[in-house]
């Protein structure tokens, strides 16, 4: 709570029902953490489906995961971890009142997120071309297992939903850049940067689990 001389001067951000900046910051952060709990359980349902069917059809998972390219999966893991790092740097810049650094770090993060989506796009396109489509549109003959589409249904649901979260994250960070350019953030008020960062790290964590579960079944 100490060292808040900056807050005493700038209090535009403080909403009327909070007593001070700290209360508002802590409340927002707790709200985001609770939201992350809901995200974990949201993806949790898909992980349950994954585990149940993996227990039922272990051979299927072995065969089908050969269709996924480990190299590009690993590259995407690096990209996302890198973007987590830059988000952490962005928060640090905001904490230190370095608004220029904040904006640069946000742009790098957005760039990395876009790289992730582009790689994802090529992965999807390659599969669509082969006829590996979700559900009843599945027409690929290359996986010698009659339940093959189950694996790819789960794959598309998990990565698709994750991709949607990445896109939402990109949108949020563009909004942060816009706000940062309008000089909204400073060391006494960077709550949106902090909680968007938390969200982005969670998206990263989910990918950290998706990568070995989908790509690394040898």
């Amino acid at each position, binding site marked *: *709570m100490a060292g808040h001389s900056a807050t005493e001067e700038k209090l535009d951000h403080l909403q009327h029902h909070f007593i001070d900046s*700290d209360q508002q*910051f*802590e409340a927002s*952060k*707790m709200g985001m*953490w*609770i939201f*992350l*709990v809901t995200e*974990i*359980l949201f993806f*949790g*349902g898909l*992980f*349950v489906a994954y*585990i*149940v069917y993996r*227990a*039922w059809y272990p051979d299927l998972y072995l065969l089908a995961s050969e269709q996924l390219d*480990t190299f590009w999966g*690993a590259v995407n*893991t*690096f990209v996302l*971890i*890198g973007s*987590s*790092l830059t*988000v*952490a*740097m962005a928060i*640090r810049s905001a*904490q*230190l009142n370095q608004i220029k650094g904040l904006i640069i770090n946000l742009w790098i993060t957005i760039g990395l997120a876009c790289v992730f989506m582009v790689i994802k796009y090529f992965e999807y396109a390659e599969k669509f071309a082969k006829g590996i489509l979700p559900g009843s549109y599945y027409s690929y003959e290359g996986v010698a297992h009659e339940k093959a589409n189950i694996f790819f249904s789960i794959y598309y649901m998990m990565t698709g939903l994750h991709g949607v979260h990445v896109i939402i994250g990109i949108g949020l960070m563009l909004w942060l850049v816009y706000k940062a350019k309008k000089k909204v953030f400073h060391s006494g008020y960077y709550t949106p940067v902090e909680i968007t*960062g*938390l969200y982005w*790290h*969670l998206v*990263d*964590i989910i990918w*950290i*689990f998706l*990568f*070995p*579960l989908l790509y*690394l079944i*040898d």
Partner: protein
Amino acid sequence: MSGHHISSAKFLWGVGITLFMLTILTVAVTWIHIPSPWNVVVAIAIAVVKALIVSAFFMNLYWESKFNVLLFVMSAAFFLLMIGITLLDTLYRNDPIPSF
């Protein structure tokens, strides 16, 4: 309550590099073929370590109020509960009650 923990740039880079190394490790262990259930265990173990590192040092849970840590733990616990009890059904669908 220390909601405003500021990490040094060096520290953040260190965390990032550790995560990169662990990613290489998790790919590398698939080259030495570990026998069946253990390959999954190793892959998940590495993923859990990475997730813990991200949550502790990028998401600042290490310096965070205990309640937020509790939230994170609870979400994992309830996920395990969901999968654990569901498996009681799906793994034993065809058998009568084991050991009866």
